[in-house]
């Protein structure tokens, strides 16, 4: 099985980096050997899959935010997320 997920973006919170309808590849194994870094764009599983950028890091928690701050629901509203919720790092747009 490939260590990749393919996602289609829905919503405006990652504009201008990603627009609704963009298709991206996510590496599920990214954080097996390396640690999440500030600036990484990641997909998280919180009931459903969400895409955000890592803004701050604590020991076991991440503060994630959308690139489009005016139109993003993120850690500013749902607070820090657990690192366990990470699905993987966004590798590229296809």
């Amino acid at each position, binding site marked *: 099985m490939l260590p990749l997920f*393919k996602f289609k*973006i829905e919503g*405006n919170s990652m504009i201008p980096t*990603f627009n609704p309808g963009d298709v991206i590849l996510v590496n599920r194994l990214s954080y097996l050997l390396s640690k999440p870094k500030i600036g990484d764009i990641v997909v998280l599983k919180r009931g*459903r*899959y969400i*895409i955000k950028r890592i803004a701050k890091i604590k020991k076991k928690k991440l503060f994630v935010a959308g690139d489009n701050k005016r139109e993003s*629901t993120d850690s500013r509203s749902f607070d820090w997320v657990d690192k366990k919720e990470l699905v993987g790092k966004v590798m*590229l747009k296809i």
Partner: protein
Amino acid sequence: MENFILSFLAKLLPTKTAYAHCDVPCGIYDPKVAQIAAATVLKMVQKINELPERGKSKNEDNALIRMVWTKEEHARKCKDELLILWTDYFKPEHLQMFPNLHETFWKAAKLCSKNKQEVNVQLAQELVRAVDEIAEIFKKTKSTAK
């Protein structure tokens, strides 16, 4: 070259949705959609129970399938709407006001799935009550925010 290979591999992968959720931009949340969906599930269960045991005609079969499909669709919609409220609207301070918030949402979301699996009036009524309870909590958080 690497990107070319990845793009080729990507064609083989199923596509999931990643939500880059926006508030457009001032926070449009409302439990009414979930309430209507839950009420529709209950109505469909009642209508399915009113049908004869075995369809006597193609039209009766058709009616049953449509009702089951509608029940399925609205249970899905109800769950989707609940998850949006749960993960996007509610904040840590709401959890302090309503310590059972997670439990309440978890049970309501489970009831959506249960109602897909079964034709059971009691379960459908429980779903309606659970979603109404969430709507009531939502209303209280809004009134304290004013």
